[in-house]
């Protein structure tokens, strides 16, 4: 039905003795918000650069929007908006002038409609009121917004974003997430790399996890986080639940109780009958963190520990 927007087949990339990407087979279906997850140095950025024809693969094939990259980069990339690693702009020019130069530089950059395109992109990212200030006076967050504006100014069908929320504050991160979801609803496929599990979990519909240049896990977020068959209950009367439903309680910690072998509906009825106050109840779902842990923990790969540590690590202490 929908053709994949990104396909890689047995993609390898070496930088001298270093294997950056190893045997990567990736398929990103159209219409998804694809989270490309992995620790720093796992090959995310190299993969993104190969998709954009900046870095040439040692072997393997890449198709973007149905066109071979790098051979037909021009046809492929004119449908793609990109944010690679960090935003970059000419410091002595304003946001508007920067976008105008980028717009004029490539295919389809006609003067007609340029002002409107740029105005709309700046409005979308919340930079419409900065005026003529040169970009060198911008804060990190404003630069990140400008980078996003540059990616969306051509209204691409595919957005390839490398760490799009780097440098943004929590408010900005949320705005970006909402923006990506909005663009995605309007038909743009989003491919974003990140080393932050929580961010991918909150934004994406599909996830691929890479470690040491290999894809170790891939699937729809809902499938990965499928219900575990257990019920998660929050109640101030946890002690009474244990006595009421003895044998079905798997875990109890504070006001949090995990039960098995009972449906949410039956449980609620029993609790109400038993006079137990309920603050929250529902089927238990695995978090992405648990999924990633289970996948990487199952293998004998010694490096999987570093993967999980790296992904879980606080973004602030991440080495540049």
């Amino acid at each position, binding site marked *: 039905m929908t053709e994949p927007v990104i396909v890689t087949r047995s993609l390898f990339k070496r*930088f001298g003795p270093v294997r950056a990407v190893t045997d990567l087979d990736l398929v990103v279906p159209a219409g998804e918000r694809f989270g490309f997850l992995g620790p720093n140095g796992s090959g995310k950025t190299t993969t993104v*650069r190969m998709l*954009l*024809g*900046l*870095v*040439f693969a040692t072997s393997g094939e890449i198709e973007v929007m149905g066109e071979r990259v790098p051979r037909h*980069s*021009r046809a492929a*990339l*004119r449908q*793609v908006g*990109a944010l*690679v*690693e*960090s*935003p*970059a*702009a*000419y*410091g*002595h*020019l304003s946001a508007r002038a920067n976008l105008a*130069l*980028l717009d*004029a*530089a*490539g*295919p389809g950059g006609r003067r007609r409609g340029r002002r409107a395109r740029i105005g709309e992109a700046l409005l979308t990212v919340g930079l419409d009121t900065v005026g003529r200030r040169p970009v060198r006076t911008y804060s990190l967050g404003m630069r990140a917004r400008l980078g996003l504006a*540059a990616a969306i100014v051509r209204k691409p069908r595919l957005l390839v974003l490398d760490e799009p929320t780097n440098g943004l504050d929590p408010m900005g991160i949320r705005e970006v997430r909402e923006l990506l979801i909005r663009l995605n609803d309007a038909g743009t496929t989003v491919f974003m790399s990140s080393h932050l599990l929580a961010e991918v979990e909150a934004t994406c519909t599909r996830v691929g996890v890479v470690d040491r240049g290999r894809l170790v896990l891939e699937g729809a977020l809902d499938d990965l986080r499928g219900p575990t068959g257990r019920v998660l209950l929050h109640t101030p009367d946890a002690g009474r639940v244990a006595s009421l439903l003895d044998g079905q309680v798997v875990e109890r910690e504070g006001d949090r109780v995990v039960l098995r072998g009972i449906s949410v509906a039956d449980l609620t009825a029993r609790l109400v009958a038993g006079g137990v106050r309920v603050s929250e109840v529902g089927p238990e779902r695995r978090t992405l963190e648990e999924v990633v842990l289970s996948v990487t923990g199952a293998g004998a790969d010694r490096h999987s520990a570093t993967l999980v540590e790296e992904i879980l690590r606080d973004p602030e202490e991440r080495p540049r």
Partner: protein
Amino acid sequence: MIRVELVQLVRRPRTWVSIALLCALPVIVAVLLSTTEIGPRPGEGPALLSAVLSNGALFPAASLGMVLPLFLPVAVSVVAGDSVAGEAATGTLRYLLARPVGRTRLLVAKLTSTLAFVVMAVVAVGLTGYVLGRTLFPSGSGGSVAVPVSSLSGSTLSPREVALRTMLALAYIVWSMLGVAAVALFLSTFTESGLAAALGSLSLLVLSEVLVGLDAASALKPYLVTRYWLSWVDLFRDPILWHDVRHGVLLQGGYVVVLLGAAWANFMTRDITA
């Protein structure tokens, strides 16, 4: 893309500052010469300068003679060296290529804007020289004290001839500077530091200058990039000595073709990791 590059060139303050600085040198020299009227003795100092005191018509050429050995190559090296490396350093190179701008197209645009800078710089210096020559020195038309311009061979040159030869000299100097630009552009495709590319190209020029002055290197001399730079002076002899000028044009052409080819080959196959 080419238009974008030209707009960038014109908008960048650096362009105008460097051209202003290039023009400042002939201004200083002209003021000193015209107030003191102490010219260099014939055969010493910058080319043609001694002739200027008697007639300002040669001052455009003399101005170029002043900036040619050092200041012009420095300016051209900086602009050309920064062209690709500077984009890599700011990170804008990856966004241009992903826009997508083809790599060949990008290189051609960079080359064009460098060429435009060279022409602008040379013409600006020439014009400055012309204005100074008309105002501060005896001129053929207005001034009464002007002595007819004599060629370096001693015969008299008509104003028309002087103008024509000055234009030829401008063109020759632009062409010579393209050789420098090619060196710097070539290095610029290898590094993320525009400074490194500019200094690299200047080192090559210094090396070339040292070898030109070294008798032991005489076998290499005809191939050194700076060997024929000053040959445009021959355009002011009577009759014009074409030999060195022709060699200079061919040699610079060779440098331009080979280095641009190498720059292209490198840039086309390079991983852009900046």
